[in-house]
């Protein structure tokens, strides 16, 4: 099987040199006993064994480095626990060889992941197999990914995504990137530039310099473009850049004193944003192909922070038309809006889950800030975090994890990015070199 797969893969890799091509479809067979249902109250992480991947030829350091990425991805979810190799009774003799299930059962490894890494020139090939130890068989077929050596971390993320996906039944999110605002300097003179990094903080690059104030970047649905608010024109305006060639250009917006909070529509062809004029902020939409714009709200209050539903038919946004910030949903073409937030305090920066089921938001109440989620009808509100200042949630591509900005207080205070899962567990700081804010989590990479 693997041999045949190899042939198919090589062709794919040649045709698209930068692409990571899966060798075989991820056929998730019957999960059997090896299954984590994320909505359940998972308390005990699932123990798994992950011996360092074999060197399938010329792999050198890549084999152990990629193994490490797989391990960090899985354990970083809080759903899995890696069993130390010192506990192993036996180790596989080679990739794809006989598995001594009894030896893995004895140390209570629920899952076993084996892999092999080969390097030929700048071409890297990673193969892996996932075993359900207690069922005594493979969970899904062996898979192989190939690409270039500079994308080696992505190979690890791809393996981890496949393992995560097979065991949880959810889409993965490890092979994804985040755009954010990198901040430096003192609180009253902070320099900001837009950065892009892997979801785990690796491979940081900067897409703008800090010559102009930049805020709140947002990925396009395919992750190739970024919208952001920039003061390059002397006041807030909407700009767009291509990740591959990041020279920002102004996006035409409706007339007003400033335009801000831009977001892409689901097909990437339109932008919704706010325009402030004469003390009033409303929502507008611009068609990127024609540059024409239309007004979506018309109220004497602040309407801002819009977010499309995944099917593109509706927009959730915040408005203070009731006297303070609350969340509303309206048709994507504008018109009547219905209020969905009714709890104590103020609700802002709503973001629609990519699964469509939940809306994440920032809540201010009694001097504290929270990241929370609610159903799209406003029911089942759940606060996931609490601190001096939490804001600006963004969803992982599978809708199971949120990243957000947490700011510490005082003169030396500053923002960092954190992630938390949708149940409120597994709060973690995302490693960045300096202050970081306003993350936008991009799609799973192809």
């Amino acid at each position, binding site marked *: 099987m693997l041999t045949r797969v190899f042939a198919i893969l090589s062709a794919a890799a040649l045709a698209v040199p930068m692409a990571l091509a899966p060798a075989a479809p991820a056929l998730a067979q019957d999960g059997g006993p090896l299954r984590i249902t994320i909505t359940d109250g998972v308390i005990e992480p699932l123990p798994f064994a992950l011996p360092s991947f074999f060197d399938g030829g010329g792999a050198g350091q890549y084999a152990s480095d990629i193994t490490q990425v797989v391990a960090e991805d899985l354990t970083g979810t809080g759903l899995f626990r890696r069993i130390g190799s010192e506990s192993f009774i036996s180790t596989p003799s080679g990739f794809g060889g006989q598995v001594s299930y009894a030896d893995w059962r004895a140390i209570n490894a629920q899952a076993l992941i084996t892999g092999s890494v080969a390097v030929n020139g700048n071409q890297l090939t990673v193969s892996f197999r996932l075993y359900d130890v207690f069922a005594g068989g493979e969970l899904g077929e062996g898979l192989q990914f190939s690409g270039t050596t500079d994308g080696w971390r992505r190979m690890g993320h791809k393996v981890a995504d496949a393992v995560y996906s097979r065991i949880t039944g959810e889409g993965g999110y490890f092979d994804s990137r985040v755009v954010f605002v990198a901040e430096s300097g003192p609180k009253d003179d902070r320099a900001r530039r837009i950065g892009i990094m892997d979801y785990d903080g690796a491979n940081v690059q900067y897409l703008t310099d800090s010559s102009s104030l930049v805020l709140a970047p947002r990925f396009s649905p395919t992750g190739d473009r970024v919208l952001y608010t920039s003061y390059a024109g002397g006041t807030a305006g909407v700009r767009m850049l291509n990740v591959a060639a990041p020279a920002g250009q102004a996006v035409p917006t409706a007339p007003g004193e400033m335009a801000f909070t831009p977001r892409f529509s689901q097909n990437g062809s339109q932008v919704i944003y706010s325009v*402030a004029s004469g*003390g009033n902020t409303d929502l507008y939409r611009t068609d990127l192909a024609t540059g024409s714009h239309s007004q979506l709200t018309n109220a004497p209050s602040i309407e*801002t922070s819009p977010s499309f539903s995944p099917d593109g038919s509706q927009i959730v946004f915040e408005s203070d038309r009731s006297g303070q910030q609350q969340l509303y949903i309206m048709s994507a073409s504008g018109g009547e809006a219905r209020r969905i937030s009714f709890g104590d305090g103020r609700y802002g*920066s709503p973001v629609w889950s990519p699964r469509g089921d939940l809306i994440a938001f920032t809540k201010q109440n009694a001097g504290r800030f929270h990241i929370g989620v609610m159903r799209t009808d406003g029911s089942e509100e759940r606060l996931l975090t609490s601190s001096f200042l939490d804001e600006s949630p963004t969803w992982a591509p599978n809708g199971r994890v949120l990243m957000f900005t947490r700011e510490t207080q005082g003169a030396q205070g500053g923002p960092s990015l954190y992630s938390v899962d949708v149940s409120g567990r597994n709060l973690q700081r995302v490693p960045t070199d300096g202050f970081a804010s306003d993350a936008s989590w991009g799609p799973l990479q192809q």
Partner: protein
Amino acid sequence: MNKFTLALLLTAALATSACTRPDRFGAGAGGAGMDPNGGPLTAGAGVGQAGLGGANDPSSPAYFNQAIGDRVLFSVDQSTISPEAQTVLDGQAQWLLTNADYQAVIEGHADEQGTREYNLALGERRANAVREYLVSRGVPSARLRTVSYGKERPIAVCSDASCYTQNRRAVTVIAAGSLS
């Protein structure tokens, strides 16, 4: 520390920051500061600039900043002009009517206790409230422009009410020449 000293310190802080990064106050940067070498700031595209002059000269921007007061403060999540702010703005309007060669950029700001995007809109609402008040006192609207920095440009950096009070502000920045 009296008001006068505070205003001087603030002006110095503004000038230093503006030199660190020329965009710091957007198109309004030229009006308020001098660089550390004493020369006027370089004007960027569309930037008005004005020599500060001496604070004893009633027609100088320095007099405007220090004797009249270049800023007014707001309550939490409000853009209402308080009676105290009205007094300051009456003085600003009088000065702008007397010194008709000058333009002004009104910067609206918010404290850190709010979400970023909402605070941008709130800052614009505050700047606009000041503009409308000045226009109601006879200042031609063509001489006034607004810009909001939301909570991104705090002047006081602590995280308690004493700093939040100072940061919920609208600052009238004097510039010579036409506004872009």
